């Protein structure tokens, strides 16, 4: 009898924990009279997240659906908490195909091989993969954005702060360093933004070697402030811990992914943010109009400030008064295409609030080891470099741990 009860209680416990997990992974929407067009999405975390990477994409997809006249509660099918494992991704794709989805978005890098393979198996479904590099010419594209442009703008805010404080040391807590072009180009663009305002600014990078670990993110920020004397802490990692530490230690910071002024009211300046709905709306419109021309209409998508895909969050009251004007000037130049970050032309900002001016000077793009990447006055590096092969820091950047 005892054994039976113990079995029952254990079973009950196990079932409850399964439900606890399932609570965050249920598939939304099983509407009976859905429209003809159905959207599928594969998430690395949960659709119920309230911040972070999956949240940003889920928010983008639901917003975009409203814009193009679809109802996310009926026309959206989600499989969430899908790890980067080919078998699991393929199962998720089969499930979404079975639901009759016309377009499937996969948001995590490691989904790429499974999506590539399944795109051949389901030629009538459009596959769209974030952050990857594979595609075909019929029904499989990749999409990402020029987040480095937004980081440059955040760098301007940090640069003004460091000028005002008379402290040239700026810290940067980064998940990875030169291993990934995504983190590397972000660090470089941020540093160049700082130096456009404060030419003596030095960016100290602490690499935590993981996308997310709250304790490490905290400690890295503490070190940058206490040991290296940094007055602004920027970040490329999952949680808001670096901003919280900056707030505790009375310095300033630039978050990432969302406006972190909520977490660090006295510290946060501005954060580079994604507005994924800009892409999702474009993709859905094209797929709804004519799926067969999707690859010629949309193709592999790589846009930035011009498409509204990236931006900086609203500047907080912690920012110096000149910041907004300078950011607007730089933003305008990037939007109309007259200038871009990784070119042989440097911007420099001068003047007090109300009369901030920007000047262009021809100067080579040089790594922190002295190698010249772009000659003075030269055009911007290729997008393929920014997306894939950039593995050096620019002058003014030092990685404090290796």
């Amino acid at each position: 009898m005892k054994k039976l009860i113990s079995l029952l209680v254990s079973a009950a416990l196990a079932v409850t924990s399964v439900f606890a997990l399932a609570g965050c992974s249920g598939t939304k929407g099983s509407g009976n009279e859905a429209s003809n067009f159905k959207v599928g999405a594969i998430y690395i975390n949960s659709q119920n997240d309230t911040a972070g990477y999956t949240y940003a994409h889920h928010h983008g997809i639901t917003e975009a659906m409203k814009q193009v006249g679809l109802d996310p509660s009926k026309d959206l099918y989600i499989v969430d908490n899908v790890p980067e494992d080919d078998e699991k991704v393929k199962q998720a794709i089969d499930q979404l195909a079975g639901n009759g989805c016309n377009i499937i978005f996969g948001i995590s890098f490691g989904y790429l091989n499974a999506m590539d393979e399944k795109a051949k198996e389901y030629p009538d479904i459009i596959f769209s993969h974030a952050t990857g590099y594979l595609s075909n010419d019929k029904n499989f594209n990749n999409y990402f954005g020029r987040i480095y442009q937004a980081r440059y703008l955040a760098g301007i805010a940090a640069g003004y702060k460091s000028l005002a404080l008379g402290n040239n040391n700026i810290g940067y807590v980064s998940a990875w360093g030169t291993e990934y072009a995504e983190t590397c180009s972000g660090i470089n663009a941020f540093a160049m933004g700082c130096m456009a305002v404060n030419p003596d600014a030095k960016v100290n990078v602490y690499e935590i070697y993981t996308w997310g670990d709250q304790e490490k993110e905290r400690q890295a920020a503490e070190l940058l402030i206490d040991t290296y004397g940094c007055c602004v802490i920027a970040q490329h990692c999952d949680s808001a811990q670096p901003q919280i530490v900056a707030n505790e230690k009375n310095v300033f910071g630039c978050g990432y992914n969302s406006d972190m002024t909520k977490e660090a009211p006295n510290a946060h300046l501005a954060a580079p943010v994604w507005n994924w709905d800009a892409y999702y709306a474009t993709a859905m419109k094209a797929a709804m109009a004519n799926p067969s021309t999707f690859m010629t209409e949309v193709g592999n998508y790589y846009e930035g400030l011009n498409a509204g895909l990236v931006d900086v969050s609203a500047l907080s009251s912690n920012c110096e008064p000149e910041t907004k004007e300078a950011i607007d000037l730089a933003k305008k130049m990037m939007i109309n295409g007259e200038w871009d970050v990784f070119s042989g032309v440097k911007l420099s900002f001068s003047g007090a609030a109300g009369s901030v001016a920007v000047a262009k000077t021809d100067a080579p793009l040089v790594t922190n080891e002295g190698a010249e990447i772009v000659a003075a006055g030269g055009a911007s590096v290729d997008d393929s470099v920014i997306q894939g092969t950039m593995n050096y820091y620019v002058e003014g950047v030092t990685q404090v741990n290796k």
Partner: protein
Amino acid sequence: MLDVFTLFLFNIIVYNIPLLYGTTGEIMIEKSGSLNLGVEGTMAIGAVVGYLAGAKTDSLLVAVLVSFIASGLVGMLFSFLTVTLQANQNVTGLTITTFGVAFYYFIGNALSNSAGGWPSLNGTRLDAQSQSLEIPLLSKIPFFGKAIFSHGILVYLGIVIAVLMWFYFKKTVPGLKLRAIGENPAAADSLGVNVALYKYTHIIIGSGIMGIGGLYMGLNMGGTFEGSNCWINGYGWISIALVIFANWSPAKALLGTLVFGFFNTLRVQNAALAYAFPNALGWLLKIPSHFFSALPFIITLIVLIISSLSSKSRSGEPQAIGRNYYREDR
């Protein structure tokens, strides 16, 4: 601004004290002859429930009591399953870890999606209470003062618990009876010790202690809810290894925490040490970071190997650990 040396010592304590809670809590449970692998889950439940109760009442005392009770209830569940119903201890412990961590995410996600959102402690009284307090005079000692005598109250509570537990095991009659149960429950039973009662009590108290460690992680190391990253972050598992490291002694648990903490801090701070003392420690930069990341675990492995090689008679391991006690088998 703290100097490198002070920050290093400070962080050894501040980022590793939850291990002391986890380890002493587990030692108390194992001394009663039960192996509880549910430390991670028990800490997660104590953390999230205590944090929310604290945020609601804005009181550190309430937060500590609630996390103790919440985790104590988890301990009671474990006792009920393994002592009363004689379920397998390993499986029950693992179930509790799965359950506890999932509970953390469940509550966290539900709350983050609700209208009020996840409660932030920014600027609350609870936040102030859990932050560092400088002990007068002692914190002014050069070099060590700031690093050792300017912590939050929960750091000192953890050390007090370890010392009291050591005293309890060594010097009191109930402590002696408890150790007897862990070594040979049948013998203790024949002497009139209520085995089930002792097991229940100590599993509940041990679990409660773990819960306070979880709360500490929520208050001092985490605070925001991330859908992808649990506050406990593996500390519960390391605690189980530290029990063996400490040879089932609460006093040595303190030592083990500091040793593990030293290497755990070194993996973050090696570059800063090299930066601050380029002549003496500049060589640290030549070693890849990944080695330092692995170091705490390599050290743990080495200690586990050494302790398993040492003679059985000197081991503090309770002889009846992991085996359920059937009175009828006597």
